[in-house]
């Protein structure tokens, strides 16, 4: 799956605002989104801030997607906990799966080990995306669940699908 495929999926699924903290796996998609200007792109320097902006925009009825590494769940856990569990302020996220099988970086392994418990703890409905053909449909379904107002949603982009070797 290339950044172009992901980008086209975002466009087709109706994403109206992208809020991101670029990591090395999603950086090509972030750069493409920022450069093309079809989807307003807001870059943050902390995942909790990204979640806050996205939750506000979503509350106002704008179809918003947070792009961040899975480690951002830990960084934003306090904000997500308050929003998701106590306020019904929900978000949709595209998470790069750092630390999956084949990870070659010692520092990345814990990102994966802590991801699933965080998603489960926060009751975030999750789907793993492994192929380009699945992304747009997965994103549409993610927004269907988001619209229930009952849960935040996460799509986990697998490293094998992100066409990266690092």
């Amino acid at each position: 799956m290339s950044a172009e495929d992901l980008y086209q999926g975002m466009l087709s699924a109706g994403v109206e605002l992208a809020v991101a903290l670029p990591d090395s796996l999603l950086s090509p998609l972030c750069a493409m989104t920022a450069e093309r200007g079809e989807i307003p792109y807001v870059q943050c320097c902390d995942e909790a801030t990204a979640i806050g902006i996205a939750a506000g925009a979503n509350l106002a009825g704008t179809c918003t997607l947070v792009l961040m590494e899975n480690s951002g769940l830990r960084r934003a856990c306090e904000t997500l906990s308050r929003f998701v569990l106590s306020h019904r302020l929900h978000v949709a996220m595209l998470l790069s799966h750092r630390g999956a099988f084949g990870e070659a970086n010692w520092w990345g392994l814990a990102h994966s080990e802590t991801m699933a418990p965080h998603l489960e703890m926060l009751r975030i409905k999750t789907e793993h995306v492994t192929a380009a053909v699945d992304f747009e449909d997965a994103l549409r379904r993610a927004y269907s669940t988001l619209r229930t107002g009952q849960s935040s949603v996460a799509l986990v982009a697998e490293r094998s699908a992100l066409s990266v070797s690092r």
Partner: protein
Amino acid sequence: MNSREFIEAILDRAGGRSVAVVAPGRTGELLFRIRPARTLFVDSMGDVCPLALGIAMAAREIDVYAFETDGGLLMNLSVLPVLGRRMPELDNLRIAIIDNRIYESSGGMPSRGCPLDWEMLFSAFGLHARVCADPEAAASAVTAARPGVRRPILIGSVSNDAAVPAAAKTIDGVESSYLVEAELARLRGIERRRPAAKS
């Protein structure tokens, strides 16, 4: 100036097409008494400005008032770069920081142990802040804000002699978000979210 006087000086100029996002503690309790409707009551520190920014970006036609506290802002200074980038293009976002210099709700310990130059802090990110010591200064700063004039972030330097108001809010975070979501849809003239696809 106390917190209520600062908040009222700002909200006195608020129009009907507006929503507010408010921090917990005394600030939230006062807002509930002054403006119970069209206000998103948040129980977390550091999230008011990002939430308000997201609403303001999504709903340009609606004025969004963010009432954050000194402790809340200091907990999430990472919002400053994105505010510095976005605020100049948003004429509907108004940010007020209620600075009582203490963590009042948790017992009154100081919120910092060093000097804090608010105007210099915001200036470092290209933002204009104005410290207000009385309601007239706050009202003047709000009135001065108009298209083409750089809107200041207002810092209310407050002192409160009265005890923190008792918890009187009759809504929780969930109900507050539902109410504000519905109000935003109404103000924007958009269809409300439909939480089910099947009858």
